[in-house]
C-alpha cells in the first residue's frame, strides 16, 4: 500500500523503568520486572496489590499523571520535532485523575479530563502549532494511531506526524480492572501455564514519523520504517476476544498484505501478551493460522505492566530496539511455558535473524491492530 516510504525519525518514552529507552531495554534483557507494591492509593480491597508505576509522580495534586509523564519526556533537549508536525495523541482515558479529583474533592471540573485538553497540552509541550487529533480504541490506541499517522504520510496528506501516547495507573482504572477480575494477584506472567491475569502499568512517549524525503531534508537518522498495518474488530464480545484467534489473524493478514511481505519475512512477533488466560491463548491460535512454523514471540507486559493506550507505542519502540540490536528479549515473568505457546515464547533472549518484525495489540470490544516494522541493514 504505501506509495511514500514512512520512516521513524525519532522516539522517546518513560516507563516504570525510568526515563528513556536505555533503562527499558536494559531491564528487559536483565529480565527485571517493575511490577511492585502499589502505594499511590489504597489497594486493600482489590484483586491485586501490584502495578508498574513511574517513580516521582504526584497523584491528585496539580497536574495529571499523564501530563507529568509527558512533561518529563518532552523536557529532554534536542528532540528535533518540526513545529509543523501533525500531532496524534493515543490514549484510552487520558487525564482520568482530573475527574477523580473532581468527584473525590470537588476540585476543578470533570470536563477537564476530556482528551482534547490533553491533546492541546501535548501540542504545547512538543512545541507543535498544528492542533491534530486524538485516537482512542482501547488497548490498541497507539498502534492504531501509528497506523493512522503512516496512512496520512503515505497518501501525501502530511510529511511529518508526531504520535504521542500516555496512560496512567489510577484508582479509577485499577478498581475497574479489579471488578472485571482481570488482574493477576501477584505479577503478570504472559504465556505461562499458571498465568491468571494482567498487571497494570503506566507509560508515555512519542514516535516521530516522516516521509523519507522529509527525514532526509531534516537530516534525521532513519531509525526504522513502517511497512504496513492492519486494523479490524472481532465483533464478538465487549470484553472477550474471538477465542479462535480469527479476529487478530485477520488484522495480521491485512498488515502483511499492506506491507507487501509474506509471513516468512517476519523475524519475530511482539505479542500483546497481557497474561490473561483468554488473550494469550487466542493470540497463539491467531499466530498458528498465519505462520507455518513457530516464530520467536515475546511480551513485555510482565516487565512494565499493561500500559493500556500507550502499550502499542512502547512496544513499537522495543521492536525498533530489537531490529537495531538483533536481540529478542525473553518474556519477563514467564516461568513455565504454556503448552500452547511452546516453540513461540522463550525464557531466554534469542537472536533476531531477519530485519522485519510485526507487533499486535488487542483491546476491549475486540479491537485489533497489527504493525509491520523494518530496519534496513
Amino acid at each position, binding site marked *: 500500500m504505501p506509495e511514500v516510504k514512512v520512516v521513524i525519525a525519532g522516539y522517546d518514552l518513560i516507563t516504570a523503568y525510568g526515563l528513556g529507552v536505555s533503562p527499558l531495554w536494559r531491564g528487559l534483557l536483565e529480565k527485571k520486572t517493575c511490577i511492585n507494591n502499589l502505594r499511590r492509593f489504597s489497594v486493600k480491597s482489590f484483586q491485586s496489590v501490584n502495578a508498574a508505576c513511574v517513580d516521582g509522580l504526584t497523584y491528585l495534586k496539580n497536574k495529571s499523571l499523564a501530563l507529568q509523564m509527558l512533561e518529563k519526556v518532552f523536557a529532554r533537549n534536542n528532540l528535533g520535532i518540526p513545529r509543523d508536525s501533525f500531532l496524534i495523541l493515543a490514549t484510552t482515558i487520558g487525564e*482520568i485523575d482530573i475527574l*477523580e479529583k473532581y468527584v473525590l474533592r470537588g476540585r476543578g471540573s470533570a470536563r477537564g479530563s476530556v482528551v*482534547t485538553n490533553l491533546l492541546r497540552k501535548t501540542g504545547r509541550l512538543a512545541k507543535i502549532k498544528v492542533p491534530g487529533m486524538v485516537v482512542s480504541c*482501547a488497548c490498541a490506541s497507539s498502534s492504531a494511531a501509528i497506523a493512522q499517522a503512516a*496512512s496520512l504520510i503515505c497518501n501525501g496528506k502530511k510529511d511529518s506526524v508526531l504520535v504521542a501516547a500516555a496512560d496512567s495507573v489510577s484508582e479509577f482504572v485499577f478498581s*475497574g480492572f479489579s471488578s472485571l477480575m482481570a488482574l493477576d494477584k501477584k505479577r503478570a506472567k504472559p504465556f505461562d501455564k499458571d498465568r491468571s491475569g494482567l498487571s497494570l502499568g503506566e507509560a508515555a512517549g512519542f514516535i516521530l514519523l516522516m516521509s523519507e524525503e522529509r527525514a532526509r531534508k531534516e537530516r534525521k537518522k532513519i531509525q526504522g520504517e513502517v511497512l504496513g498495518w492492519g486494523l479490524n474488530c472481532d465483533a*464478538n464480545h465487549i470484553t472477550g476476544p474471538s477465542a479462535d484467534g480469527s479476529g487478530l489473524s485477520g488484522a495480521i493478514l491485512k498488515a502483511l498484505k499492506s506491507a507487501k511481505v509474506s509471513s516468512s519475512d517476519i523475524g519475530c512477533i511482539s505479542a500483546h501478551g497481557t497474561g490473561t488466560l483468554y488473550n494469550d491463548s487466542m493470540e497463539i491460535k491467531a499466530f498458528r493460522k498465519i505462520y507455518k512454523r513457530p516464530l520467536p514471540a515475546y511480551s513485555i507486559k510482565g516487565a512494565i505492566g499493561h500500559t493500556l493506550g500507550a502499550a502499542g507505542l512502547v512496544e513499537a519502540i522495543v521492536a525498533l530496539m530489537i531490529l537495531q540490536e538483533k536481540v529478542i528479549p525473553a518474556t519477563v515473568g514467564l516461568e513455565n511455558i504454556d503448552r500452547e505457546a511452546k516453540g513461540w515464547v522463550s525464557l531466554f533472549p534469542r537472536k533476531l535473524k531477519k530485519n522485519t518484525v510485526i507487533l499486535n495489540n488487542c483491546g476491549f470490544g475486540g479491537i485489533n491492530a497489527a504493525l509491520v516494522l523494518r530496519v534496513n541493514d
Partner: protein
Amino acid sequence: MIKTLGVGWIKKGKCGLRDKGLTYKYADLKSLYLVLKEKGIFSFPVENFARFDQASKLATIAVGLALYDADFVYAQGKKQDIGILATNKNGSLDAQLAYFKDYIDSGRTLGRGNLFIYTLPSSPLAEAAIHFGLTGPLLYMNFPDSAKNIRLMVYAQEMIRAGQAKTMLVLKSTNQETACFVVGAL
C-alpha cells in the same frame, strides 16, 4: 466513486432515515428499540440492550437506521467488512462519571464492571459492531476544532481507498443529535 449511501439520525423525541424519508417518534430509547425491532430495522434482538449505557444505545440505534437506509442486510452470525469511526465532544465523560460516582458511593471497595466497560469512548462503537457483525477498523477520534464531522468523513474515505475496509460508518454525536453515515463505493 466513494459516496454517502445512507444516513440514520436520532434527535430528542424523533429519529429517521435520510434517503428513505422515514421518521419515527419515540418516548424513550427502550420503546424506540422495540418499535424498530418490529419494523425489521433490527433483524434479531440486540443482546443486553437494556444494560447498555446511553451512548451505546444511541450508537447501536443510529447504526441500525443508517444500514437500513443504505439497504445493507445483516444477519446473526454473519460478519461484514464494515468499519466505524466516531466522534463527539466529551468522549465517554458521562459513563466515566457514572462509574466513578457509583464506585465511591459503594464504599470505594469494588467498582461495577458493567459500568466500567463503557468508560472507554470506543465501547459504544464496539457494541454496535458486535450486534451488526462489523469487522472493519473501529476508532474513536476527537479533534480540538469544530470540523470534526468533515475530518471523519475524509478519514473514512481514505480507509476505503487504502483497502482497510469496503465500507465505513461515520458516527457523530452532539447534545442535540446522533447521526450515522454509511460511506462506500457506488
